[in-house]
């Protein structure tokens, strides 16, 4: 199944200057009962986003029309906790193309990449610069260029490079997924099995 190709984005962004945002916040466990990947975006950050009666919580950033854009910028250690890929489906389903933070949990990083959502790890200083820019102007923009592996704080012109291995970069640029690749390795997998320690 091809994933969406990642193209360069320049957009206003949604700031969430909270550390250790765990996957239970991104998508609470009670919304994991679905058997398809659809509809998770509606429940993204549910308990922070909605009151008990389902009405939007006024103070939450996704409910604030002043902030918009297809990039989420969050505090360090984003996506810790549960391995639920539903968190990546919720972020993609809501319409985010990339998440920017100074630190990502490993499983979340992998899940995002497998769903065409780019995790962009930046320095603490760069992250602070983005929060400062959006404080001054809620329509401040960020530009993410995957091909050149750079992120730019458009308000200040400040740029920083980010890491991604060339295999995954190629997948994202072209919309390839890992399963097609693994399925093409049938003979190599059988050869491995023939020599492996048997359990």
């Amino acid at each position, binding site marked *: 199944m091809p994933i969406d190709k990642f193209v360069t984005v320049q957009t206003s962004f949604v700031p969430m200057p909270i550390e250790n945002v765990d996957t239970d916040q991104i998508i609470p466990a*009670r919304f994991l009962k679905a058997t398809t990947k659809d509809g998770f975006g509606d429940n993204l950050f549910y308990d922070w986003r909605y009151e008990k009666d389902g009405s939007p919580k006024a103070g939450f950033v996704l409910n604030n029309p002043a902030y918009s854009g297809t990039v989420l910028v969050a505090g360090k250690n984003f996506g810790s*906790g*549960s391995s639920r890929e539903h968190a990546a489906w919720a972020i993609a389903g809501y319409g985010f193309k990339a998440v920017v933070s100074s630190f990502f949990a490993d499983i979340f990083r992998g899940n995002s990449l*497998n769903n065409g959502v780019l995790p962009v790890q930046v320095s603490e200083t760069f992250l602070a610069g983005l929060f400062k820019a959006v404080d001054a102007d809620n329509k401040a923009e960020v530009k993410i260029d995957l091909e050149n592996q750079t992120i730019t704080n458009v308000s200040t012109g400040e740029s920083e490079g980010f890491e991604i291995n060339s295999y995954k970069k190629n997948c994202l640029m072209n919309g390839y997924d*890992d399963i097609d690749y693994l399925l093409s390795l049938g003979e190599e997998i059988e050869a491995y099995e023939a020599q492996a320690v048997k359990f």
Partner: protein
Amino acid sequence: MGKTLFDKIWDSHVVKTIDDGPNVLYIDRHFIHEVTSPQAFGGIKARGGKVARPSQVIATPDHNIPTVNQHLTIQDELSRHQVETLKKNCEENGITMYGLNHPYNGIVHVVGPELGITQPGMTIVCGDSHTSTHGAFGSIAFGIGTSEVEMALATQCIMQPKPKSMRINIEGELGKGVTSKDIILYIISKLSTGGGTGYFVEFAGSAIRSLSMEARMTVCNMSIEMGARGGMIAPDETTFEYIKGREQAPKGEAWDKAVAYWKSLVTDADAKFDKELTFDGADIEPMITYGTNPGMGAKVCEYIPTLDSIEDSSQGSFQKSMEYMGFKAGDKLEGKQVDYVFVGSCTNGRIEDLRAFCEAVKGKQKAESVTAWIVPGSKQVEKQAIEEGLKEQLEAAGFELRQPGCSACLAMNDDKIPAGKYAVATSNRNFEGRQGPGSRTMLASPLTAAAAAVTGVVTDPRTIFNL
């Protein structure tokens, strides 16, 4: 240069190395449950493919199942549909499933070890972050997302960058009332919830060696709570003794061959780790968490940190956490009100945990103000608890033994802690709303949970039990 235990197993499972990319890693055992597998089966179907090695896949529903009246149909429609979908997918693909009411049903990370499916030297994955539990046997075991579940089902391989290596040594003797849960909560409180990110951890040292298999599983189970990809402990006589005779353990000649191989699974003396830390077992005391991530833990006899001890940039998140918990920086932990006690989960739902809890509350009574849920990790644990008389002991002290499942650890079934209530839980996560919307969780060992259950407040177990 010598190799680490991790390197030995990892390197022997690499099917292919991709330049500046992940390794193609072969998977020996793949556990699945109802929550993170349906979309993976859906993906395979959409491609017109099939499950590659069904005999290496083991299924058990655990997250959604009720812990009372399991003989009745699951009442919640969505939960029932998800559990039935697992059953259908397993039937269509020839995968063994230990369904609800099967004598082997239970939490996936309890079932694997107790059936002897989990063995040293294996690569093991499951769409569940607590798969790290199986590392206690000297295997490489870690949680994966659903895309990777699909990869493992379709090809028996996944794509993984090789993580960095870390060794954490716990040396010396543990004090009275200090359990393996306290060891891991202590380590996480030192490293923080992201301190292990990017690493695979080997736990070593004399205090780790002295632990039973159940206790080792508790330590490895929570490796993910410091962000580590997984945790592992080199196999030894304790490991072999635990596995021997279990249903799927090697038998006869195969057993001798297996043990000879397993004995080679140790870190060489001259192997180097990217990071190495050593703690003194004597410094560890009964632990409890006070905040909304597992790194926010302290000794039960201590105080919540004061605000000025928190880094400036983290103060906002710390205060948000205190507000959620209804606590103040600098508060004393002992004496905090406890409304619920939950004993169970893949962290502390094994027979040894139930024994420890029962032994502690013997001759005492549950505090009237406390609602307690004692949930065995599997049908086999439940059966053993009944046979050993633990169920009667619990009932005599005012407790009830429920039926197995993940239960209030993540509250996908009806076992939800109400909003605003405080729970002392032996599970693994104290995130906001983890045990139900608005629930407030304090993580601790079965002993500290027992102390809270009989007093109704946070209590150092050493002050009320004869330990």
